[in-house]
């Protein structure tokens, strides 16, 4: 984190309370300060209810902080959303089942008013990136879970946003497919140089994918630890390296919140 480089994401003093003053009031996040460098891969991990998904959505301007501010690419989060600075991927691929794979990838481009030929070209490019070129005319129903997530990622990147926000995109996949997808994602990240904010439940996944793992405490969520992972270029073997296990242990211990501690 240097002063010379502007942060891609700057979250300062953010608190988020749902339904303030009502009986179902929820303090999701308290006093979050977070700065993310351009081009880095950061994971958010924490127990259920720690607010990691909420934080992701705050960055994406899908919800707004009760206190504090969120700046993305030197603009307010809302401006960044309107400028389409980021792409999102969720746990359920969220593909429209009535559209072909190609049409699904073209969706954001259509909304932005791209011409038909421009869309076609970009969609083909994206399919190539995620290695699904033969499936352009198929429907989501005909694809496996892993393939659908790849399409979701292709769609998220189709308009070349600078930021990729991902909320447990591999959560519904089996372990083997998951590991495969992680490698694919890193491949894409290295090729495109995006900033990625990745929410996950899985400690090995967070350690394998990111350069930085942000550990969050249970509700009301705070940032408990900020662990940097220096594993270099990740290979399949990296998962079996001693340093990998050390980092996994470090994160696991950071996640051990005692009973009664906030």
């Amino acid at each position, binding site marked *: 984190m240097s002063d010379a480089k502007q942060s891609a994401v700057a979250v300062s003093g953010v608190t988020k309370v749902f339904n303030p003053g009502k009986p179902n009031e929820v303090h999701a996040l308290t006093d979050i300060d977070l700065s993310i460098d351009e081009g880095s891969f950061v994971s958010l991990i924490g127990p259920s209810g720690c607010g990691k998904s909420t934080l992701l959505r705050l960055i994406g301007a899908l919800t707004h902080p009760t206190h504090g501010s969120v700046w993305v690419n030197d603009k307010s989060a809302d401006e960044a959303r309107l400028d389409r600075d980021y792409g999102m991927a969720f746990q359920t691929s969220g593909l*429209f089942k009535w559209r072909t794979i190609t049409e699904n990838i073209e969706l*954001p481009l259509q909304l932005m008013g791209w011409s038909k030929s421009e869309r076609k070209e970009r969609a083909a490019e994206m399919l190539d990136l995620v290695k699904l070129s*033969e499936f352009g005319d198929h429907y989501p129903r005909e694809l496996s879970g892993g393939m659908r997530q790849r399409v979701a990622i292709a769609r998220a990147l189709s308009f070349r946003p600078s930021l990729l926000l991902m909320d447990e995109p591999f959560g519904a996949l089996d372990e083997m497919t998951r590991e495969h997808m992680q490698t694919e994602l890193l491949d894409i990240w290295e090729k495109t140089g995006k900033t990625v904010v990745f929410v996950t439940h899985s400690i090995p996944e967070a350690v394998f994918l990111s350069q930085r793992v942000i550990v969050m405490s249970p509700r009301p969520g705070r940032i408990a630890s900020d662990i940097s992972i220096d594993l270099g270029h990740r290979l399949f073997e990296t998962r079996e390296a001693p340093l990998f296990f050390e980092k996994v242990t470090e994160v696991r211990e950071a996640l051990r919140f005692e009973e009664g501690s906030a």
Partner: protein
Amino acid sequence: MTTQDETARAIRRHERVAATRRTIRRSVIFAAFLVILAMTYTGYKAVGQSIDDQQTNWPLVGALLPRTDDLTMPPISDIVAEFGQPPQRNSNKPLVAFIAEASLFTLREAALGFFFGMVFGLSIAVVLLRSVWIEKGVTPYLVASQTIPLVAIAPIIVIWGSTSLGWLPFEWTNWMSVALIAAYLTFFPVAMNGIKGLQSADPASMELMRSYAATRRQTLIKLQLPASVPYLFAAFKIAATAAIVGAIVGEISGGVKGGLGRLILDFASRYTTGPSRLYATVIGAAVLGILAVGLVVAAEYVVLARRREEPISL
């Protein structure tokens, strides 16, 4: 990867075959049902004739059992033969031709009513989607509106149509009033299912649209409306029958000539001179109803098969 492509194509082929098999099976079962029905009818008649209709005097069930003489229950052979007989003295046109023409007349009213009811119902669904408050406020009245036997008001609507609508650029004929009744019966299932369908868009997809800064209109057109299509088709199947019923009853109570309603009324009032004619006409009405729903089912198959989706059963 090509094997996966092949697998997908094989799955598609298999689904088409399965769908065809299903249709054949259902038609066979339906045909079997008709045969059993005919056999029961004829069998009951024979039994009743042999015991001199004593069954009508049995305790409890006696009142539910009709008499079996040829006037009350014409033999099936008579009914079938009647289709080919000319009902009018001065022409050679067989009954089946009259029934076909009347069916077309009624179908036209029903189709027109169905179309407008569909448009209106969908519009209401879109409006109700806007605010939970409006939805809560209007839905009870939508439900209540269906308890109003509008068909009862048919004569009023017919007269209103012929007098107060003179300002319209075209001539308002009686059958248009009937179409209005059909529209009324169509809009409710379409509106109710439309809302359900529009709301069925999965929340992740809704969030996705927000992340694209999509306008409300874009979200409606690109996400919610396509998501509602299976639900709408379920409603269309119900509405198709309702529109036909509305048309027939509207014709009867509105005194509209040219459709099945009029035909049924005529043959009912002249029952004693030809009971088979009434039966034949009623069968014609049944066929029309099935045809109407069949058209919707065919359309549904075409639309959903392309999207590779399952239809929603009722």
